[in-house]
Protein backbone atom coordinates (compact mmCIF):
# COMPACT_ATOMS: atom_id res chain seq x y z
CA UNK A 1 0.00 0.00 0.00
CA UNK A 2 1.46 3.37 -1.05
CA UNK A 3 1.52 6.12 1.57
CA UNK A 4 -0.25 8.99 -0.16
CA UNK A 5 -0.66 12.59 0.83
CA UNK A 6 -4.16 13.98 0.46
CA UNK A 7 -2.87 16.51 -2.08
CA UNK A 8 -1.41 13.68 -4.19
CA UNK A 9 -4.74 11.86 -4.15
CA UNK A 10 -6.49 15.04 -5.33
CA UNK A 11 -3.91 15.60 -8.08
CA UNK A 12 -4.60 12.05 -9.24
CA UNK A 13 -8.41 12.56 -9.26
CA UNK A 14 -8.03 15.70 -11.36
CA UNK A 15 -5.57 14.05 -13.76
CA UNK A 16 -8.22 11.37 -14.47
CA UNK A 17 -10.56 14.12 -15.75
CA UNK A 18 -8.02 15.52 -18.22
CA UNK A 19 -7.19 12.54 -20.41
CA UNK A 20 -9.28 13.67 -23.41
CA UNK A 21 -7.99 17.25 -23.48
CA UNK A 22 -5.77 18.87 -26.08
CA UNK A 23 -5.03 22.05 -24.14
CA UNK A 24 -5.37 22.57 -20.39
CA UNK A 25 -4.84 26.00 -18.81
CA UNK A 26 -4.21 26.67 -15.14
CA UNK A 27 -4.70 30.06 -13.49
CA UNK A 28 -3.72 31.76 -10.25
CA UNK A 29 -3.27 30.04 -6.88
CA UNK A 30 -3.69 26.52 -8.29
CA UNK A 31 -0.79 24.22 -7.39
CA UNK A 32 -2.90 21.05 -7.30
CA UNK A 33 -4.58 21.66 -10.69
CA UNK A 34 -1.18 22.69 -12.09
CA UNK A 35 0.41 19.45 -10.94
CA UNK A 36 -2.56 17.46 -12.29
CA UNK A 37 -2.31 19.08 -15.73
CA UNK A 38 1.42 18.38 -15.97
CA UNK A 39 0.83 14.81 -14.80
CA UNK A 40 -1.83 14.28 -17.48
CA UNK A 41 0.60 15.65 -20.06
CA UNK A 42 3.43 13.31 -19.00
CA UNK A 43 1.12 10.28 -19.02
CA UNK A 44 -0.22 11.25 -22.45
CA UNK A 45 3.36 11.38 -23.75
CA UNK A 46 3.88 7.79 -22.63
CA UNK A 47 0.74 6.81 -24.59
CA UNK A 48 2.09 8.71 -27.60
CA UNK A 49 -0.60 11.37 -27.19
CA UNK A 50 -0.16 15.12 -26.99
CA UNK A 51 -1.64 17.40 -24.33
CA UNK A 52 -0.57 21.03 -24.15
CA UNK A 53 -0.48 22.69 -20.76
CA UNK A 54 -0.36 26.41 -20.01
CA UNK A 55 0.41 27.33 -16.43
CA UNK A 56 -0.24 31.04 -16.16
CA UNK A 57 2.15 31.69 -13.30
CA UNK A 58 5.02 29.78 -14.88
CA UNK A 59 7.53 31.16 -17.34
CA UNK A 60 8.55 27.71 -18.52
CA UNK A 61 5.26 25.79 -18.75
CA UNK A 62 3.43 28.51 -20.60
CA UNK A 63 2.50 28.68 -24.29
CA UNK A 64 1.55 32.36 -24.40
CA UNK A 65 3.63 35.20 -25.82
CA UNK A 66 1.01 37.89 -26.35
CA UNK A 67 0.63 39.11 -22.78
CA UNK A 68 -1.87 38.39 -20.04
CA UNK A 69 -4.88 38.89 -22.32
CA UNK A 70 -3.94 35.90 -24.49
CA UNK A 71 -5.43 33.41 -21.99
CA UNK A 72 -8.86 35.03 -22.40
CA UNK A 73 -8.63 35.47 -26.15
CA UNK A 74 -7.43 31.87 -26.53
CA UNK A 75 -10.27 30.59 -24.33
CA UNK A 76 -12.86 32.66 -26.22
CA UNK A 77 -11.53 31.18 -29.48
CA UNK A 78 -12.34 27.72 -28.08
CA UNK A 79 -8.70 26.64 -27.89
CA UNK A 80 -8.73 25.71 -24.19
CA UNK A 81 -10.54 22.50 -23.21
CA UNK A 82 -10.23 22.59 -19.44
CA UNK A 83 -9.72 25.35 -16.89
CA UNK A 84 -10.00 25.31 -13.09
CA UNK A 85 -11.90 27.74 -10.89
CA UNK A 86 -12.22 27.94 -7.14
CA UNK A 87 -14.42 29.93 -4.82
CA UNK A 88 -14.77 31.31 -1.35
CA UNK A 89 -18.28 29.92 -1.75
CA UNK A 90 -19.76 27.54 -4.32
CA UNK A 91 -23.50 26.91 -4.32
CA UNK A 92 -25.77 24.07 -5.44
CA UNK A 93 -26.41 25.72 -8.83
CA UNK A 94 -22.64 26.04 -9.39
CA UNK A 95 -22.56 29.80 -8.92
CA UNK A 96 -19.14 30.81 -7.62
CA UNK A 97 -18.11 33.64 -5.31
CA UNK A 98 -14.50 34.83 -5.15
CA UNK A 99 -15.25 38.27 -3.74
CA UNK A 100 -16.38 37.99 -0.13
CA UNK A 101 -19.03 37.11 2.41
CA UNK A 102 -21.99 39.14 3.58
CA UNK A 103 -23.80 41.69 1.45
CA UNK A 104 -21.55 43.27 -1.20
CA UNK A 105 -22.16 46.86 -0.15
CA UNK A 106 -21.33 46.06 3.48
CA UNK A 107 -18.93 43.19 3.09
CA UNK A 108 -18.00 41.10 6.14
CA UNK A 109 -14.87 39.37 4.92
CA UNK A 110 -13.23 40.51 1.71
CA UNK A 111 -11.37 38.00 -0.48
CA UNK A 112 -9.10 38.74 -3.49
CA UNK A 113 -11.66 39.09 -6.29
CA UNK A 114 -13.15 37.38 -9.32
CA UNK A 115 -9.98 37.07 -11.48
CA UNK A 116 -10.94 35.93 -15.00
CA UNK A 117 -13.80 33.69 -13.86
CA UNK A 118 -16.55 35.86 -15.36
CA UNK A 119 -15.34 35.06 -18.88
CA UNK A 120 -13.60 31.69 -18.46
CA UNK A 121 -16.72 30.08 -16.92
CA UNK A 122 -18.67 30.97 -20.08
CA UNK A 123 -16.24 29.87 -22.78
CA UNK A 124 -14.19 26.88 -21.59
CA UNK A 125 -16.12 23.62 -22.23
CA UNK A 126 -14.85 21.79 -19.14
CA UNK A 127 -14.59 23.94 -16.04
CA UNK A 128 -13.51 21.96 -13.00
CA UNK A 129 -14.40 23.64 -9.73
CA UNK A 130 -11.79 22.89 -7.14
CA UNK A 131 -12.02 23.85 -3.50
CA UNK A 132 -10.11 21.80 -0.92
CA UNK A 133 -12.20 22.80 2.09
CA UNK A 134 -15.47 20.85 2.11
CA UNK A 135 -17.71 22.47 4.70
CA UNK A 136 -21.08 24.20 5.02
CA UNK A 137 -19.28 27.56 4.85
CA UNK A 138 -17.64 26.85 1.47
CA UNK A 139 -20.37 24.73 -0.16
CA UNK A 140 -23.44 26.86 0.44
CA UNK A 141 -27.08 26.90 -0.58
CA UNK A 142 -26.74 30.34 -2.20
CA UNK A 143 -23.53 32.35 -2.71
CA UNK A 144 -23.37 35.88 -1.25
CA UNK A 145 -21.91 37.28 -4.49
CA UNK A 146 -21.94 35.81 -7.99
CA UNK A 147 -18.48 36.23 -9.53
CA UNK A 148 -19.64 33.95 -12.34
CA UNK A 149 -23.01 32.19 -12.70
CA UNK A 150 -23.29 28.40 -13.00
CA UNK A 151 -25.70 28.62 -15.93
CA UNK A 152 -27.12 31.28 -18.26
CA UNK A 153 -30.24 32.01 -20.27
CA UNK A 154 -30.45 30.36 -23.69
CA UNK A 155 -29.76 33.59 -25.59
CA UNK A 156 -26.41 34.16 -23.83
CA UNK A 157 -23.30 32.96 -25.66
CA UNK A 158 -22.11 30.13 -23.45
CA UNK A 159 -20.28 27.14 -24.91
CA UNK A 160 -18.60 26.54 -21.53
CA UNK A 161 -19.51 25.88 -17.94
CA UNK A 162 -19.14 23.68 -14.87
CA UNK A 163 -18.54 19.95 -15.32
CA UNK A 164 -17.09 18.74 -12.01
CA UNK A 165 -16.52 19.89 -8.44
CA UNK A 166 -13.68 18.35 -6.46
CA UNK A 167 -13.07 18.90 -2.74
CA UNK A 168 -10.75 17.09 -0.34
CA UNK A 169 -13.66 14.78 0.52
CA UNK A 170 -15.67 14.25 -2.65
CA UNK A 171 -16.04 14.51 -6.43
CA UNK A 172 -19.33 15.77 -7.88
CA UNK A 173 -20.50 15.98 -11.48
CA UNK A 174 -22.69 18.93 -12.48
CA UNK A 175 -25.91 18.15 -14.34
CA UNK A 176 -26.59 21.14 -16.61
CA UNK A 177 -30.26 20.22 -17.29
CA UNK A 178 -31.13 19.69 -13.62
CA UNK A 179 -28.82 22.52 -12.46
CA UNK A 180 -27.72 20.23 -9.69
CA UNK A 181 -24.60 18.40 -8.54
CA UNK A 182 -24.43 14.60 -8.33
CA UNK A 183 -22.00 12.86 -5.96
CA UNK A 184 -19.71 10.50 -7.90
CA UNK A 185 -16.81 9.61 -5.61
CA UNK A 186 -15.92 10.02 -1.97
CA UNK A 187 -12.67 9.89 -0.06
CA UNK A 188 -11.92 6.48 1.51
CA UNK A 189 -12.45 7.84 5.02
CA UNK A 190 -15.82 9.38 4.15
CA UNK A 191 -19.43 8.29 4.27
CA UNK A 192 -22.29 9.64 2.16
CA UNK A 193 -24.01 10.72 5.38
CA UNK A 194 -21.05 12.80 6.41
CA UNK A 195 -20.82 14.42 2.97
CA UNK A 196 -24.51 15.35 3.21
CA UNK A 197 -23.86 16.85 6.65
CA UNK A 198 -20.88 18.90 5.43
CA UNK A 199 -22.49 20.18 2.24
CA UNK A 200 -24.63 23.30 2.43
CA UNK A 201 -26.59 22.46 -0.72
CA UNK A 202 -28.74 19.53 -1.79
CA UNK A 203 -27.36 17.11 -4.37
CA UNK A 204 -28.04 13.76 -6.04
CA UNK A 205 -26.04 10.60 -5.37
CA UNK A 206 -24.89 8.51 -8.32
CA UNK A 207 -26.07 4.87 -8.44
CA UNK A 208 -22.50 3.75 -9.01
CA UNK A 209 -20.84 5.89 -6.35
CA UNK A 210 -17.29 4.73 -5.55
CA UNK A 211 -14.29 5.71 -3.46
CA UNK A 212 -11.72 8.06 -4.99
CA UNK A 213 -9.40 6.00 -7.17
CA UNK A 214 -5.96 5.31 -5.71
CA UNK A 215 -3.15 6.04 -8.19
CA UNK A 216 -0.93 3.11 -9.15
CA UNK A 217 2.80 3.01 -8.45
CA UNK A 218 3.70 4.20 -11.96
CA UNK A 219 1.61 7.37 -11.57
CA UNK A 220 2.97 8.06 -8.09
CA UNK A 221 6.54 7.66 -9.40
CA UNK A 222 5.96 10.14 -12.23
CA UNK A 223 4.36 12.57 -9.81
CA UNK A 224 7.11 12.39 -7.21
CA UNK A 225 10.14 12.03 -9.46
CA UNK A 226 9.23 14.40 -12.24
CA UNK A 227 6.14 16.56 -11.75
CA UNK A 228 7.17 17.67 -8.25
CA UNK A 229 10.29 19.37 -9.64
CA UNK A 230 8.30 21.02 -12.41
CA UNK A 231 5.81 22.38 -9.86
CA UNK A 232 8.61 23.80 -7.73
CA UNK A 233 9.40 26.23 -10.57
CA UNK A 234 6.06 28.01 -10.18
CA UNK A 235 4.75 27.01 -6.74
CA UNK A 236 7.92 26.68 -4.61
CA UNK A 237 6.08 26.90 -1.29
CA UNK A 238 3.70 24.06 -2.25
CA UNK A 239 6.46 21.81 -3.65
CA UNK A 240 8.45 22.30 -0.47
CA UNK A 241 5.48 21.49 1.76
CA UNK A 242 4.35 18.36 -0.10
CA UNK A 243 7.56 16.88 -1.42
CA UNK A 244 10.27 18.68 0.52
CA UNK A 245 11.90 20.16 -2.58
Amino acid at each position, binding site marked *: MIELKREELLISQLADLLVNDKHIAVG*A*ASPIPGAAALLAKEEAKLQNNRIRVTIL*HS*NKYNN*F*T*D*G*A*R*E*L*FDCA*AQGRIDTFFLGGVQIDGEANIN*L*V*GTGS*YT*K*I*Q*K*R*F*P*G*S*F*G*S*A*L*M*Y*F*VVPQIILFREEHSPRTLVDKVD*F*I*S*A*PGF*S*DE*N*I*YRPGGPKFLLTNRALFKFNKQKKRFCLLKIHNNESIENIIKLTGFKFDVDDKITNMSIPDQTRVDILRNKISYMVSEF*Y*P*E*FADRIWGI
Partner: protein
Amino acid sequence: MKQFDELSLLEIVDEVKDGDLIGIPADYSGVPMMFTKELIKKGVKDLKLYCLPLTTIQGDMLIGSGCVSEIEAAAVTLGEFGLAPRFSKAVEAGHILIKDSTCPALHAQLQATEKSVPFMPLRGVIGSDIQKYRKDWQVIENPMKCSGHKNEPILLLPAVQLDVLIFHAPCVDKNGNIQIGRRRELATLTHASKKVFVTTEKILDIDFFDNELSAATCLPALYVDGISVVENGAWPCALPGVYGQDNDEIKKYSIAAKTQKGFEEYMQNYLFN
Protein backbone atom coordinates in the same frame (compact mmCIF):
# COMPACT_ATOMS: atom_id res chain seq x y z
CA MET B 1 20.86 64.54 -29.11
CA LYS B 2 20.07 61.74 -26.69
CA GLN B 3 17.02 59.84 -27.88
CA PHE B 4 15.32 59.63 -24.46
CA ASP B 5 15.08 61.49 -21.13
CA GLU B 6 17.00 59.91 -18.31
CA LEU B 7 15.45 61.01 -15.03
CA SER B 8 16.13 60.48 -11.36
CA LEU B 9 13.71 58.26 -9.45
CA LEU B 10 12.44 61.32 -7.54
CA GLU B 11 11.73 63.16 -10.78
CA ILE B 12 9.49 60.26 -11.80
CA VAL B 13 7.78 60.28 -8.40
CA ASP B 14 7.07 64.00 -8.89
CA GLU B 15 5.16 63.21 -12.08
CA VAL B 16 2.47 61.41 -10.05
CA LYS B 17 -0.14 63.84 -8.74
CA ASP B 18 -2.78 63.44 -6.04
CA GLY B 19 -5.94 61.94 -7.54
CA ASP B 20 -4.20 60.40 -10.57
CA LEU B 21 -5.53 57.24 -12.22
CA ILE B 22 -2.35 55.17 -12.16
CA GLY B 23 -1.63 51.92 -14.02
CA ILE B 24 -0.57 49.02 -11.80
CA PRO B 25 1.18 46.05 -13.46
CA ALA B 26 0.56 42.48 -12.26
CA ASP B 27 3.17 40.68 -10.14
CA TYR B 28 4.50 38.91 -13.24
CA SER B 29 4.99 42.05 -15.34
CA GLY B 30 7.69 44.04 -13.51
CA VAL B 31 6.39 45.81 -10.41
CA PRO B 32 8.19 49.13 -9.74
CA MET B 33 8.69 48.60 -6.00
CA MET B 34 11.54 51.09 -5.49
CA PHE B 35 9.38 53.72 -7.13
CA THR B 36 6.43 52.72 -4.93
CA LYS B 37 8.56 53.14 -1.84
CA GLU B 38 9.43 56.74 -2.80
CA LEU B 39 5.82 57.45 -3.77
CA ILE B 40 4.66 56.38 -0.30
CA LYS B 41 7.37 58.51 1.32
CA LYS B 42 6.16 61.51 -0.66
CA GLY B 43 2.69 60.98 0.86
CA VAL B 44 0.66 61.03 -2.34
CA LYS B 45 -3.13 60.99 -1.79
CA ASP B 46 -6.36 59.84 -3.46
CA LEU B 47 -4.71 57.66 -6.08
CA LYS B 48 -7.02 55.57 -8.22
CA LEU B 49 -5.33 52.27 -8.96
CA TYR B 50 -6.08 50.56 -12.26
CA CYS B 51 -4.68 47.04 -11.99
CA LEU B 52 -3.95 44.96 -15.06
CA PRO B 53 -5.48 42.77 -13.93
CA LEU B 54 -4.35 42.32 -10.32
CA THR B 55 -1.96 43.64 -7.74
CA THR B 56 -0.09 42.07 -4.85
CA ILE B 57 2.20 43.79 -2.32
CA GLN B 58 2.40 47.06 -4.31
CA GLY B 59 -1.33 47.76 -4.09
CA ASP B 60 -1.57 46.49 -0.53
CA MET B 61 1.24 48.81 0.64
CA LEU B 62 -0.23 51.84 -1.13
CA ILE B 63 -3.65 51.13 0.40
CA GLY B 64 -2.23 50.50 3.89
CA SER B 65 -0.28 53.77 3.65
CA GLY B 66 -3.43 55.76 2.93
CA CYS B 67 -2.45 56.74 -0.62
CA VAL B 68 -5.49 55.21 -2.34
CA SER B 69 -9.15 56.24 -2.57
CA GLU B 70 -10.27 53.86 -5.33
CA ILE B 71 -9.12 50.63 -6.98
CA GLU B 72 -10.31 48.83 -10.09
CA ALA B 73 -9.05 45.24 -10.17
CA ALA B 74 -9.87 41.61 -10.81
CA ALA B 75 -7.98 40.57 -7.68
CA VAL B 76 -5.80 41.88 -4.87
CA THR B 77 -3.88 39.05 -3.25
CA LEU B 78 -0.50 37.99 -1.91
CA GLY B 79 -0.76 34.79 -3.98
CA GLU B 80 0.73 31.81 -2.17
CA PHE B 81 1.01 33.96 0.95
CA GLY B 82 -2.69 34.53 1.32
CA LEU B 83 -5.02 37.52 1.35
CA ALA B 84 -3.78 41.08 0.87
CA PRO B 85 -4.47 42.17 4.47
CA ARG B 86 -4.53 45.98 4.17
CA PHE B 87 -6.72 45.77 1.06
CA SER B 88 -9.22 43.43 2.71
CA LYS B 89 -9.42 45.56 5.86
CA ALA B 90 -9.81 48.80 3.86
CA VAL B 91 -12.70 47.35 1.83
CA GLU B 92 -14.39 45.85 4.90
CA ALA B 93 -14.16 49.22 6.67
CA GLY B 94 -15.38 51.11 3.59
CA HIS B 95 -12.21 53.22 3.46
CA ILE B 96 -11.65 52.67 -0.25
CA LEU B 97 -13.96 52.21 -3.21
CA ILE B 98 -13.44 48.94 -5.03
CA LYS B 99 -14.62 48.64 -8.61
CA ASP B 100 -14.73 44.88 -8.92
CA SER B 101 -13.91 43.68 -12.40
CA THR B 102 -12.70 40.59 -14.23
CA CYS B 103 -9.34 40.20 -16.01
CA PRO B 104 -10.52 40.32 -19.64
CA ALA B 105 -12.63 43.44 -18.94
CA LEU B 106 -9.61 45.27 -17.54
CA HIS B 107 -7.66 44.38 -20.69
CA ALA B 108 -10.54 45.32 -23.01
CA GLN B 109 -11.09 48.78 -21.48
CA LEU B 110 -7.45 49.64 -22.18
CA GLN B 111 -7.61 48.04 -25.63
CA ALA B 112 -10.46 50.43 -26.47
CA THR B 113 -8.16 53.35 -25.64
CA GLU B 114 -5.34 51.75 -27.67
CA LYS B 115 -7.63 51.86 -30.69
CA SER B 116 -9.13 55.21 -29.71
CA VAL B 117 -12.68 53.88 -29.82
CA PRO B 118 -15.19 54.74 -27.06
CA PHE B 119 -15.99 51.21 -25.91
CA MET B 120 -15.18 47.55 -26.36
CA PRO B 121 -17.57 44.59 -26.32
CA LEU B 122 -16.85 41.45 -24.27
CA ARG B 123 -18.60 38.11 -23.99
CA GLY B 124 -19.31 36.38 -20.69
CA VAL B 125 -19.85 38.39 -17.49
CA ILE B 126 -23.62 38.85 -18.04
CA GLY B 127 -25.63 37.56 -15.08
CA SER B 128 -22.75 38.00 -12.64
CA ASP B 129 -22.89 40.38 -9.69
CA ILE B 130 -19.78 42.05 -11.11
CA GLN B 131 -21.94 43.32 -13.95
CA LYS B 132 -24.81 44.15 -11.57
CA TYR B 133 -22.67 46.59 -9.56
CA ARG B 134 -20.86 48.21 -12.51
CA LYS B 135 -23.14 51.08 -13.48
CA ASP B 136 -20.53 52.26 -16.02
CA TRP B 137 -21.03 49.07 -18.06
CA GLN B 138 -23.89 48.50 -20.50
CA VAL B 139 -25.53 45.52 -22.15
CA ILE B 140 -26.92 45.84 -25.68
CA GLU B 141 -28.29 43.39 -28.19
CA ASN B 142 -25.74 42.44 -30.84
CA PRO B 143 -26.50 45.01 -33.60
CA MET B 144 -24.59 43.09 -36.31
CA LYS B 145 -26.50 41.07 -38.87
CA CYS B 146 -23.45 39.34 -40.35
CA SER B 147 -21.52 38.29 -37.23
CA GLY B 148 -22.21 36.82 -33.82
CA HIS B 149 -25.66 35.54 -32.88
CA LYS B 150 -29.01 37.17 -33.45
CA ASN B 151 -30.61 38.58 -30.27
CA GLU B 152 -27.43 37.95 -28.34
CA PRO B 153 -27.00 40.32 -25.37
CA ILE B 154 -23.44 41.62 -25.25
CA LEU B 155 -21.55 43.63 -22.65
CA LEU B 156 -20.01 47.01 -23.56
CA LEU B 157 -17.11 48.41 -21.54
CA PRO B 158 -15.98 52.05 -21.62
CA ALA B 159 -12.52 53.00 -22.87
CA VAL B 160 -10.24 53.86 -19.97
CA GLN B 161 -7.26 56.16 -20.30
CA LEU B 162 -4.70 56.20 -17.49
CA ASP B 163 -3.11 59.44 -16.27
CA VAL B 164 0.22 57.82 -15.59
CA LEU B 165 1.94 54.45 -15.71
CA ILE B 166 5.18 53.32 -14.09
CA PHE B 167 6.68 49.86 -14.49
CA HIS B 168 10.08 48.21 -14.01
CA ALA B 169 11.93 46.58 -16.93
CA PRO B 170 15.03 44.40 -17.21
CA CYS B 171 16.90 46.69 -19.61
CA VAL B 172 16.72 49.59 -22.03
CA ASP B 173 18.80 50.14 -25.18
CA LYS B 174 20.84 53.26 -25.99
CA ASN B 175 17.84 54.83 -27.73
CA GLY B 176 15.42 54.29 -24.85
CA ASN B 177 13.62 51.26 -26.26
CA ILE B 178 12.38 49.07 -23.41
CA GLN B 179 12.82 45.31 -23.21
CA ILE B 180 9.46 43.82 -22.12
CA GLY B 181 9.86 40.29 -23.48
CA ARG B 182 6.56 38.43 -23.63
CA ARG B 183 4.94 40.73 -21.07
CA ARG B 184 2.90 42.38 -23.80
CA GLU B 185 0.29 43.64 -21.32
CA LEU B 186 2.87 46.33 -20.55
CA ALA B 187 2.44 47.55 -24.12
CA THR B 188 -1.35 47.63 -23.64
CA LEU B 189 -0.95 49.64 -20.43
CA THR B 190 1.53 51.98 -22.12
CA HIS B 191 -0.61 52.65 -25.19
CA ALA B 192 -3.52 53.57 -22.91
CA SER B 193 -1.62 55.98 -20.65
CA LYS B 194 -1.10 59.74 -21.02
CA LYS B 195 2.34 59.58 -19.39
CA VAL B 196 4.67 56.58 -19.08
CA PHE B 197 7.81 56.24 -16.96
CA VAL B 198 10.06 53.22 -16.70
CA THR B 199 12.55 52.17 -14.07
CA THR B 200 15.12 49.68 -15.30
CA GLU B 201 18.03 47.57 -14.09
CA LYS B 202 20.40 48.92 -16.75
CA ILE B 203 20.88 50.80 -20.00
CA LEU B 204 22.71 48.82 -22.69
CA ASP B 205 24.95 50.34 -25.35
CA ILE B 206 23.15 48.53 -28.18
CA ASP B 207 20.17 49.11 -30.46
CA PHE B 208 17.34 46.55 -30.03
CA PHE B 209 16.23 47.25 -33.62
CA ASP B 210 19.50 45.83 -35.01
CA ASN B 211 18.21 42.35 -34.24
CA GLU B 212 14.82 40.82 -35.14
CA LEU B 213 14.52 38.96 -31.83
CA SER B 214 15.19 41.93 -29.58
CA ALA B 215 13.12 44.23 -31.82
CA ALA B 216 10.11 41.94 -31.41
CA THR B 217 10.34 41.95 -27.63
CA CYS B 218 10.79 45.65 -27.02
CA LEU B 219 8.47 48.57 -26.40
CA PRO B 220 9.48 51.46 -28.67
CA ALA B 221 10.84 54.61 -26.97
CA LEU B 222 8.24 56.78 -28.69
CA TYR B 223 5.66 55.86 -26.04
CA VAL B 224 7.91 56.58 -23.05
CA ASP B 225 8.35 59.93 -21.26
CA GLY B 226 11.31 59.13 -19.04
CA ILE B 227 13.60 56.38 -17.80
CA SER B 228 15.48 55.91 -14.56
CA VAL B 229 18.10 53.29 -13.73
CA VAL B 230 17.12 51.62 -10.46
CA GLU B 231 18.99 48.44 -9.64
CA ASN B 232 16.94 45.71 -8.00
CA GLY B 233 13.96 47.97 -8.65
CA ALA B 234 11.27 45.28 -8.43
CA TRP B 235 12.41 43.72 -5.13
CA PRO B 236 10.79 41.92 -3.34
CA CYS B 237 8.63 41.21 -6.40
CA ALA B 238 10.03 39.22 -9.32
CA LEU B 239 11.53 40.64 -12.48
CA PRO B 240 10.77 38.09 -15.21
CA GLY B 241 13.88 36.50 -16.63
CA VAL B 242 16.17 38.38 -14.22
CA TYR B 243 15.31 37.51 -10.62
CA GLY B 244 12.53 35.70 -8.79
CA GLN B 245 10.22 36.89 -6.06
CA ASP B 246 11.79 37.11 -2.58
CA ASN B 247 9.42 34.64 -0.92
CA ASP B 248 10.87 35.18 2.57
CA GLU B 249 10.24 38.90 2.38
CA ILE B 250 6.68 38.57 1.02
CA LYS B 251 5.93 36.06 3.78
CA LYS B 252 7.34 38.46 6.36
CA TYR B 253 5.11 41.22 4.98
CA SER B 254 2.04 38.96 4.88
CA ILE B 255 2.42 38.24 8.59
CA ALA B 256 3.30 41.79 9.70
CA ALA B 257 0.51 43.45 7.68
CA LYS B 258 -2.24 41.40 9.33
CA THR B 259 -2.64 44.30 11.77
CA GLN B 260 -2.32 48.05 11.08
CA LYS B 261 0.32 48.30 13.83
CA GLY B 262 2.36 45.44 12.39
CA PHE B 263 2.05 47.01 8.95
CA GLU B 264 3.26 50.39 10.20
CA GLU B 265 6.28 48.82 11.91
CA TYR B 266 7.12 46.87 8.78
CA MET B 267 6.79 49.98 6.62
CA GLN B 268 8.93 52.10 8.93
CA ASN B 269 11.73 49.61 8.42
CA TYR B 270 11.04 49.07 4.72
CA LEU B 271 10.90 52.77 3.85
CA PHE B 272 13.72 54.16 5.96
CA ASN B 273 16.28 51.38 6.54
